[in-house]
Every structure is written in C-alpha cells, then in structure tokens.
C-alpha cells in the first residue's frame, strides 16, 4: 500500500468515525474530519509535486468486478489533469471544513454535517482519481448522493427536502444518458479502463449506428451520451434547474459541492475524454453551443434575481457554461484552468455570502441588505476581490482563465467566433450582476429592520480565515497561466498539454490584445453600469424594470423553465403516478389481489358455516342419507 490510496481513504475513514461516534464528541467532532481532509490535502500536494516532476501514477489496487470478459478494478490514474483536480478538491474541501466549524456551530446535526462533507470529499476524490469509467461512475453517483444529503440537510424544511429530491431526480435524466454511454463504451471497446479506451479509440472511427432510422457516428453518439451526464451534473441547459434550488442547503455545501467541485465533474469528464470528443465535430459543436447558450441564459437570469445565493448559483451555471464552451472549441486546458480559478473565487463568493447570511440571521434578499461594508470589513474585502476576479479585472485569477478561453474560442473557426461573441457578452453581464450584489449588499444604507442592524457583526475567525486564504487564491491562482503575450509562460497550459493537448492558435498578437481588451472593457463596463444603477442613480433600476417589463418578468421567472417542466414532465408524471400507478395498479390490481384473496376465502367460509346448524339431527340425517346414497350406488354398479 502506498500513499495515493490514502487520498480518498482518509476522508472515508473520517466519515465512518464521525457517523458512528460523532455524536459522542459533541462540539469537538469537527477535528477528525478536518484532520482527515488535511491529510488528503498534504498527500495531494506531495503527489502534485511528483506529477510536476513528470511522474504519472497509474495502477490497480483491487479487482472490483471480474465476470467473463468484464473486468474492472479499483485503481488510480494520477496524471496532470487529476493532479490539478486533486489540488482543487482538497484545498476547497479543507477550507470549507474549517469554515463550517464557525458557520454550523450549534447546529443539532453538527456531526452529521461533517460526516457528509467527508463522505462527499471521498466520493469526489474517487471520481477524479479513478483509472476507469466505472470508478468514475461510482464517484459520480456517490457525489450526487452526498449532494442530495447535504441539500436536504435541514430536512425538516419542506423546501430543502424538495430541493434535494429535485437535484437527485433531475440528475437521473443526465445519468441515464451517461450510463448508456458507459455501456456503449464497454460494448464497442470491451474495456472501461482509460488507457485501453484511448488506445482503441481509432477502431470506432467511421463506424455508424442506426438510431431511430438515423445513421449516427458511433463516436458522436458515445460522446453525446457521456455529455448527457455532464449536462446533468454540471447544471447545463436543459438540466440546469436543480442548481438554483440546491441553494436550500447550508452555504458551505453550496461553496464546496455546488460551486467548486461536484458541478465541475462534468467538465472533468469532458476533459478526461477529450480524445473521444475531439474525434467528433458534431459533439464538439454541441458542447460548445450548450456551454455558450447556458452561460448567456444563466447570466441574464442572474441580472434580476434578489436572492444572494441564487445569483451566485446562476453565476456558477454561467461559469460552468464557460468551461464547456472552452472544451467545445478544443481548449480543454483553458477549461480546466478556468475550473481551477473558478473554484477559488466562486467558493469565496459563496462563503462570503454565507458570512453575510450569518450576520443577517439567514436573510438572503439583497434588497433588504446594504451598507454591510462598515460592519463586516473582512467579508466585504474578500467578496470584493472575488467579484473583481470573476469580472475579469486584469491581474486576478478570473482574468487569466477567462481570457485564455475567449482567445482560444476566437481562434476556433465559425463556431468559435459565435461562442466568443457570446462569451464576451457574458463577461460584461457577469461583471454587472456580481457588482450589483456588491453595491446592494455592502454599499448604501442598511435597508433591513433596526433589530437586524443591531445584530450585524463580523464572522468568527474560523470563517474569516478561510475567506482570506481563498482571497489569496482568487488573486494569485491565475498566475500559473499568464499568457506569453503578457510576458508569462502559460505554465498550466503546458503542464496539462500531455493530457489535454492544445488547440492550434493562428491569431496574431494584435488580435490577442484586441480580444483581451474587449473582454476587459466589457468587465469594467459591467461594473460601471452596475455602479451607475445601484450606487449613483438608485431610481434607475425600477425605471428600467418598468420600461422593459416583459423582459424583466421573463428573467425574473428564469425563462419559465420550472413552469415548463412542471407542465410537461412533473404534472404528467404525477398524474400517471396518482391515476395509473396508485389508482389502477396499486388500488385495483395489487390491493385487489392482496385484499381479494382473503375476502374470497372469508365469503366461502361464511357460506360454508351455514352447514353447521348445531342440530344433531341434521348431521344424523346427513350421515344416513350419505350411507343410503353410497349403498344405492354399490347396488347399482356392483352388478
């Protein structure tokens, strides 16, 4: 046994200790989970340095399933891609664990919360370290399960329980496709191990399969099926509806699962299968356009929402769209780079929002906040840095990754140009809504009740220290990917190149400056507009809201996706369940059999007992008649 297995194993041990014995440790039960994740983090960092020195770890630990020619093992593949993911997952997980000590303090399910966090960390690490598709699938479903546990953590609240179910059920749709994709890979390639899959991919080239009368390229089909899973997990159109509702969970959960790690699993999947996706132009276009359209849609929704966590959630959907957009134009490295920087600033935004909620006693409506800058300077400062980072202000993490994506999209042919335009618009929108939150929350006058104002305070150190560490990440995480045109070496791009490749770039330096200039201008423009609307002319938003009432209503209602699904899927399903499954199958058929058989026997007995008259003479007559009949028969037939 070597140290790599400990990376996922430590949080699993932490989970078991805490779920069984956590209640006995009371308020001290956070120590074991934190130490477990800290152990994972340290080993991950060591592993990362080994990978940087050129070591690729790929070995099987245990034969998991052996059945005929179906062989799957539990094994680890730690290459450059996995190493980056390991750093992201363990860092954010560790900080969120520490943050939760302050945030969840005094919650009745304190030990349960940490147990779930540890289980989630284990699942996520299994997902990223696996060397085969089945292990990835295992981690994929396990993180989904943990997501369900943690969204519905406050299960006494109906909306939280519903949100958990929604997340789980919506993900079923995506995972159904993903499952089919895994089957297809096994049927056509006979293996689920990455190395064997990628070595044999060329055999799929040119094969087609007939689906409902259409000839579809096998590669395209498998890629799209796998992408189905990514759409569900990473909350892309049309399965994005669960992520905003997932905000019912505790805020550290939103930061860890629904911003930094689990939702990026889809991007990881596409990046991991980049040889497959790159073989199918159709699949690439689908990935790029899905990402771009989702990104635009989510950003526009975020413009008008008032719930601080939902705005950040839509921002996450939008940024995930960005990552898919990058993968779709072949810039997998840029996508993973954005995943990595996004993990820092988005986790920071969520934890900052959690800090605000902590001070506001759970208030989420940014219209009822304001002026918090004076009361919670650390939260304000870190939130501001994260917002600058996501807005793409030069020098901060978000700028480098976003710029890399936009530049590579610009070079990506016609589709690339389209998604570049969308991406640039989204960059402006992102800056606008991020600073709308900043101005409404931290500037101006406090708009809540007097009692709330009295209660305002900065959060305890266990919360502010993770914020500060993440703020350092939100500033500096991008410095590993400074493009050559700015005098850097794009180190992370070259680091990931052996796994993810690098798209062909034919644009000139002048064009690169232009792309960069436009996106920065959009970002600053967005901030400026937000400042005008929410700082200098507070009457204007209302005016615009009235002037473009129909557009505002559509955005406010999130393009009516929930309503659409409610009418087309939820209600027919419920109708079917209630009328057919409950009304016919259950009430008529199953209960008919279960209740019918005893009833039949009972009625038969009811009739039969009438024979038992209790009058001895009746029995005697019966016996005599019986004898008579038998004797008669003997006489008749015996001759």
């Amino acid at each position, binding site marked *: 046994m070597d140290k790599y297995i400990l990376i996922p194993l430590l949080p699993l041990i932490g989970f078991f200790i805490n779920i069984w014995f956590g209640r006995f440790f009371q308020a001290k039960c956070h120590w074991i989970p934190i130490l477990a994740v800290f152990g994972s983090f340290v080993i991950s960092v060591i592993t990362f340095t080994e990978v940087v020195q050129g070591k690729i770890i790929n070995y099987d630990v245990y034969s998991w399933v052996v059945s005929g020619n179906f062989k799957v093992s539990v094994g680890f593949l730690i290459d450059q891609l996995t190493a980056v993911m390991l750093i992201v997952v363990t860092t954010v997980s560790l900080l969120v664990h520490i943050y939760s000590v302050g945030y969840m303090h005094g919650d009745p399910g304190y030990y349960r919360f940490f147990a779930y966090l540890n289980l989630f960390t284990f699942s996520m690490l299994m997902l990223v370290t696996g060397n085969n598709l089945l292990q990835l699938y295992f981690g994929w479903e396990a993180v989904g399960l943990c997501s369900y546990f943690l969204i519905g953590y406050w299960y006494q609240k109906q909306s939280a329980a519903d949100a958990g179910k929604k997340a789980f059920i919506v993900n079923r749709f995506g995972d159904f496709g993903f499952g089919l994709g895994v089957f297809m890979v096994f049927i056509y390639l006979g293996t689920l191990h990455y190395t064997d899959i990628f070595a044999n991919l060329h055999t799929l080239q040119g094969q087609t399969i007939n689906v409902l009368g259409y000839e579809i390229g096998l590669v395209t089909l498998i890629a799209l099926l796998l992408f189905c899973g990514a759409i569900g997990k990473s909350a892309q159109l049309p399965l994005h509806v669960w992520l905003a509702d997932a905000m019912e969970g505790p805020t550290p959960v939103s930061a860890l699962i629904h911003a930094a790690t689990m939702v990026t699993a889809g991007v990881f999947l596409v990046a991991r299968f980049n040889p497959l996706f790159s073989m199918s132009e159709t699949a690439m276009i689908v990935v790029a356009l899905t990402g771009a359209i989702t990104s635009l849609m989510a950003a526009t929704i975020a413009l008008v929402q008032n719930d601080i966590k939902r705005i950040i959630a839509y921002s996450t959907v939008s940024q995930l769209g960005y990552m898919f957009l990058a993968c779709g134009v072949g810039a997998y490295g840029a996508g993973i780079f954005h995943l990595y920087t996004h993990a820092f600033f988005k986790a920071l935004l969520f934890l900052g929002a959690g800090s605000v909620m902590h001070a506001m006693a759970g208030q989420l409506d940014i219209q009822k906040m304001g002026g918090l800058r004076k009361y919670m300077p650390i939260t304000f400062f870190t939130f501001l840095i994260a917002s600058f980072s996501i807005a793409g202000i030069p020098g901060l993490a978000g700028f480098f990754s976003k710029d890399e994506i936009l530049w590579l999209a610009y070079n990506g042919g016609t589709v690339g140009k389209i998604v570049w335009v969308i991406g640039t618009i989204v960059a402006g929108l992102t800056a606008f809504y991020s600073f709308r939150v900043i101005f409404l929350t931290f500037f101006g006058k406090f708009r809540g009740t007097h009692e709330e104002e009295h209660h305002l305070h900065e959060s305890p150190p266990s919360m502010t220290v993770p914020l500060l560490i993440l703020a350092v990440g939100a500033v500096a995480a991008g410095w590993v990917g400074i493009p050559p045109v700015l005098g850097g070496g794009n180190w992370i791009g070259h680091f990931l190149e052996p796994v993810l490749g690098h798209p062909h770039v034919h644009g000139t330096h002048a064009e690169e400056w232009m792309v960069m200039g436009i996106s920065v201008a959009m970002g600053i423009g967005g901030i400026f507009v937000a400042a005008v609307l929410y700082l200098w002319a507070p009457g204007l938003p209302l005016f615009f809201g009235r002037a473009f009432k129909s557009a505002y209503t559509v955005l406010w209602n999130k393009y009516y996706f929930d309503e659409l699904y409610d009418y087309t899927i939820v209600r027919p399903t419920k109708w079917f369940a209630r009328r057919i499954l409950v009304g016919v199958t259950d009430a008529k058929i199953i209960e008919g059999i279960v209740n019918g058989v005893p009833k039949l026997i009972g009625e038969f007995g009811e009739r039969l007992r009438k*024979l038992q*008259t209790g009058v001895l*003479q009746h029995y005697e007559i019966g016996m005599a008649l019986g004898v008579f009949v038998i004797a008669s028969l003997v006489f008749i037939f015996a001759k």
Partner: protein
Amino acid sequence: MVPLDWYIMLSAVMFTIGLAGFIARRNIIIMLICIELMLNAVNLSLIAFSHYLQDLKGQILVFFTISVAAAEAAIGLAILVAVFRNKAMVDADKLTEMKG
C-alpha cells in the same frame, strides 16, 4: 336352527328403530341409547354372517365394535354429565353453541 334371514331382518329393524329414535328424540340420553341400539344391530348382523360363513373375523370385529362402543358411551355420558351440570337440562335442540 334360526335362518340367516331372520337375523338380518332383526338387525335391520333394530338399526332402523335406533336411527328413527336418534332423529326423532331430543333427549340426549335417549339419543345415546339409540346409538347403542344401532351399534348392536350391526354387531348382530356381523355375528350372524360370521356364523353363516364360518369365519371368525366377523366376531373379532365385533369385539372391536363393543370396545369402541364402550369408550363412546363413557365419553358421551361424561359430556352429558358435564352439560347437565352447566345447563341443568339435556335437550339437544337447546345446545347450539357450536352453531356456525
């Protein structure tokens, strides 16, 4: 020597009297006596046939019948005594606890 026919007829008459008495009467003691009458009617015919056929099996069977009848009478009377102690009467029509 008495011919076989006579025994058979006597046996039939005894059996019929027993059956009729069992059906017609309501006093359990009488009913038990009627059962004994029927059993003995059968015993009579068995012995008659046994003698007629010169086969001892019939007489052996009669011993069994007698012992069964004795047991039956003992149990029947015991039940009767118990019933009488509880109900102070032995009318079969009024004993309807077992009615379905």
